[in-house]
């Protein structure tokens, strides 16, 4: 069962066409990686999947994006969409509040009330993000006082707190040290049991390590999309091979 089905997607920022005839399927409960050189459209496509592109002036799309068969651009409540499809950003961006309030922000937005329930959600989410033990005694402390790696795991916990089905990750480890990177990669592999994960990454080895499927983008088009092992052993397209072997990029 495919979680996302994207058909014939064109995206324009004003006059500039950022995505061209994109067609792609994202299988559920797997990790799909989007790779490609800077400006190729992979982050743009990612942000289309939870309609974050709506926030950008002059952004226009044609084509369809289906989540479990439903078109997300026709008649779907954006708030509900973003509850089902969560996002983690490149630079960790916890709110200037306590750890607890950060994680509780999402649930509170979607109507969860009551101390006990919120406590429960916060603990569960922090556990899922493998950061409960480190933060259980610091729930009321300011989130901005955490290290970069901890902040990013906190952001993952925050995203998980609304119980999404999909997790979109935009270069989640590119601002982090190697050890935090490994922790988050391991976390992704654990999470894919329950969530569909799409990760945009510049790091070829990361894509090879953790993803099940990979799509290679170039100048707004999907050049090749296949299971990761095939893509990294015997890619079909010459451009794909040139990119992943570092011959350009």
């Amino acid at each position, binding site marked *: 069962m495919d979680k996302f089905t994207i058909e014939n997607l064109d995206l324009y920022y004003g006059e500039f066409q950022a995505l061209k005839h994109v067609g792609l399927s994202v299988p559920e409960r797997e990790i799909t990686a989007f790779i490609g050189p800077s400006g190729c459209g992979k982050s743009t496509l990612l942000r289309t999947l*939870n309609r*974050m592109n709506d*926030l950008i*002036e002059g952004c226009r799309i044609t084509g369809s994006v289906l989540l479990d068969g439903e078109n997300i651009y026709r008649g779907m409540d*954006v*708030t*509900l*969409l*973003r*509850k089902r499809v*969560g*996002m983690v*950003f490149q*630079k960790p*961006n*916890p*709110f*200037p*509040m306590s750890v607890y309030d950060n994680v509780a*922000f*999402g649930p509170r*937005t*979607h109507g969860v009330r009551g101390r006990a329930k919120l406590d429960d959600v916060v603990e569960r989410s922090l556990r899922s993000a493998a950061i409960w033990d480190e933060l259980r005694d610091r729930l009321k402390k300011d989130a901005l006082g955490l290290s970069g790696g901890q902040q990013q795991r906190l*952001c993952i916990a*925050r*995203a998980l707190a*609304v119980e999404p089905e999909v997790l979109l990750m935009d270069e989640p480890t590119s601002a982090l040290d190697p050890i935090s990177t490994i922790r988050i990669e391991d976390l992704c592999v654990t999470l894919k049991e329950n969530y569909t994960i799409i990760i945009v990454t510049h790091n070829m080895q990361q894509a090879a390590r953790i993803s099940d499927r990979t799509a290679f983008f170039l100048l707004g088009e999907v050049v090749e999309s296949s299971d990761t092992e095939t893509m990294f052993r015997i890619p079909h397209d010459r451009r794909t091979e040139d990119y992943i072997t570092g011959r350009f990029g």
Partner: protein
Amino acid sequence: MKRAKIFAAAARLAVYLAALITLGALLFIIGYIVVRGVPHLTWSLFAWRYNSENVSLMPALLNTILMTTLSLLIAVPLGVSAAVYLVEYARRGSRLVRIVRMNAETLSGIPSIVYGLFGMLFFVNALKLGLSMLSGALTLSVMILPVILRTSEEALISVPDSYREGSFGLGAGRLRTIFRVVLPDAVPGILAGVILGVGRIVGETAALIYTAGTASDTVSGIMDSARTLSVHLYALSQEGLYLDQTYATAVVLLGIVIVINALSSALARKVGLHHG
């Protein structure tokens, strides 16, 4: 070579001298007033009622507090809401934003006597509010609105977009994002602007004379005319009979201004650290 050295030494001397003169002038003003005023700072000056035997400043002080509160109650919600619109809703850099900002800049440069005359013509006469606290407060709000608007706008802009993105990404709407994430983070900056406004109000004389009048008692209602502390100082010195008390009053006013400035710097530092 020698000439360059002499030149450098002379320049340094000139700069030191300039700093010394500036500091000296400030200290002189403060010192003079303090020296002339403190000996006459008696408790009777803080009596509840003013009469021509005891030119108490308490009513004026109370009026100042009331006037400030009233003006802020009008100006702050307006200014902050307008800033929220400009930053969160309008397209950044659009024509409207630029027009509003230009207007705000212009307004803040208008001399206060002009505000006073405007207030008198519009609030006092045209709206028939008469010389009253209300007229004064309305005029003052118009005066400090640009300051509040500008500093609130700056404060809101300096809230990183990544917070907004994070909030939207979780499914929060624009209103919730503004009230739960953006505004709380912008509060120190907005507060700094409010305090700037308060500073302006406390020191305002010309505008208030024409709109709030100079009645010397504490107001019993906002439609009453009443003088604030700086107006009281003006009135006292006008009469020329109570020179000592005038200086004493000046000391109090000076003290208040210094405290306000100190608060403002402390807050500015906190804001700087916060977004550092």
